[in-house]
């Protein structure tokens, strides 16, 4: 039996969901799913995702609205390839160099790993992709477990948000409304300031603004 990789960020996310009554639905894991480094959607699979898919075949977290969908990956379906390839067009970024592993349920806001920016342990950073007509990318975490940790802190902010409590229309959104949470990930900030993400970003105002907000938070 393969020793399980600890996922403190993911565990914290589940705890927060339990504590604040977010529903968590998961799918059963497949029997033979790709291991870390094996190709998925044309890129080596991130080790955190590989560990996660050993535990479950997919996940959906919802409160008043959907918050996070981990794409299905099991013996029947490779949802990472499905989601990524449906958006991928030749060498166009960001989908050329990234693999979408999740999204805001039923919306075209994706969370994707960037395998080309993996660190020495093979951990891949996470970007947020707005795939609507305004199309832009914001880096959100230096690795997938760190992403879950940040998301869990966001959910704690969300449950006390006045708009969310009042009528479900939140006054704070993820990630755009919480640059200070993102900035706690110092390794990500370092990658941002050294321009590691530049190749995958469109040079629009959104990125410049994001860069300024995260680095100054």
């Amino acid at each position: 039996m393969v020793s399980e990789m600890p996922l403190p960020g993911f565990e914290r996310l589940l705890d927060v969901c339990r504590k604040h009554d977010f529903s968590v639905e998961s799918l059963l894991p497949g029997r033979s799913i790709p291991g870390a480094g094996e190709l998925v959607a044309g890129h080596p699979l991130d080790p955190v995702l590989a560990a996660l898919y050993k535990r479950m075949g997919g996940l959906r977290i919802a409160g008043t609205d959907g918050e996070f969908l981990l794409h299905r990956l099991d013996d029947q379906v490779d949802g990472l390839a499905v989601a990524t390839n449906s958006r991928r067009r030749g060498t166009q970024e960001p989908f050329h160099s990234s693999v979408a592993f999740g999204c805001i349920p039923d919306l075209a806001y994706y969370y994707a790993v960037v395998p080309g920016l993996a660190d020495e342990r093979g951990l891949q950073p996470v970007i947020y992709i707005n795939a609507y007509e305004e199309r832009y990318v914001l880096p959100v975490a230096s690795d997938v477990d760190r992403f879950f940790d940040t998301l869990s802190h966001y959910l704690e902010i969300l449950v006390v948000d006045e708009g969310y409590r009042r009528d479900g229309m939140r006054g704070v959104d993820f990630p755009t409304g919480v640059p200070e949470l993102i900035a706690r990930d110092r390794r990500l900030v370092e990658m941002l300031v050294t321009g590691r993400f530049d190749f995958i970003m469109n040079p629009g105002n959104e990125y410049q603004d994001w860069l300024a907000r995260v680095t100054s938070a």
Partner: protein
Amino acid sequence: MRGVASLVDEAEVELTFRFWAQDGALTLLSWKRGPGGTGRSEGMDSWVPGLDASLPLYVGTRMGEVVLTVRGERQGWRLNSFTWGDGARPLEAKTLPVRRTGMSAETLAQAHAMASQLSHVRVPEGGRAALLVDVRLDDDRLLGAETVRYESQGDSSIGVPSPSLTVSITQALLPFTQGIGPRTVRLRLEAEHRRADGHARWRVMEAETLRPELPGSPSLIAEHYALYERILREWREETAATFQQAGMASAEFLATWFIGSLALRGGLALFEAVAPRLAPILARGGSEAVAWFRSFLARIRPKERETFQRLWTKAQTQGLSAAEKTQLRKLLARFEELLDTKLDEEARKLLRRQANTDFYKLRPELAKTLVDAAGSKYPVHHRIPLEHAHRFPEMNINGSANLNALHSTVHERVNNVWTAFRPASSKASGGEVRQVADIVDRHFQRWYDTVYEQASETALEQAEKAALREVRMLLARLP
């Protein structure tokens, strides 16, 4: 009823009361004094024994019109008849029992002030007079009164005052203050002066509620009244927390409440001057204006939504102070500015969440079929994209006519077409944005709201190319 009966000091008089009864709540619709009267009688101070206690038992939780007659006899008042009528529910009728009954000191003072104002009428010495008065009410508030008709017989050169008229009018009016919404109570009074007496004797003969003609469909009006009654009750009896728990803080509720009250109760004058473009959009009324405003609310920060609801509810139920009126106007002036401000990221995301929910709620069969293998429903695309929403301030950008579900592969291509238009978008007109939306429709609509087949990829490629070509031609024509 006792108050009305106290106006009668003669025996052999019959009083007929009509109420609407619903879930134990009684609303007086009219009362009428029958003919007759055999001179003063001492027994008239004695009310129908046990009626106050047994009326709730008679009525129970039944719904309908109750007609009740009482007759003054020498020993006191007796219940003559109690029947159920078949009238339809009048709008002003309460449907929810309330915990706080009785009149507020303010209502009493208003009734008294209004009655005093009416009681200046004089009766010709030794003659007769008849008076018809309309009193305007809103909820339990008395707004004003006017004389509809005054007729007299006799020598009008000498008028006799009637000091007891104030009390009569007050007693006749008060039971009508237990109702909902704007309405008029019409009072018919008759007077007689006998030369031997120092004063004229006035009698209120009849009082009944007249209902305003309301714009809009009956079902919308009924829905609005139901909402309004709940708001009124919660507002007066409950705390802000229960207001929230009762779901009365949702954007949907707020939009329905705001547009409905604007159409049926007015209030446009409060902000028309500071929001000249917003006002007519809201004044359209009906479900379209409700849907428009609900989408508009996505642009308003939570704190402002809360302030707006608080001020508007107070404006409708109690009236606003001068400072609150200024605050409301400022808020609405800001709303007006938002009409042609580009949507920010937060508002776009909220609208997309709402659009997805609404689209699949309206088309539940598609919620089952339009799901991709990764487990996500097809994203909902705005025909006129949110990026350009500010050019179409009157349009409900989240209206179903502007929404289509597209598989992400198709969505990606459609976005490409809009991206091609983006460099020109700041100088392009609303008409040109519509032209691009038409181009997209023409080339992509076979993939709208339908399961995407991989086999159509070549056709999709061609559709994208053709659409891009047309957009480039359009761009070339732009100055």
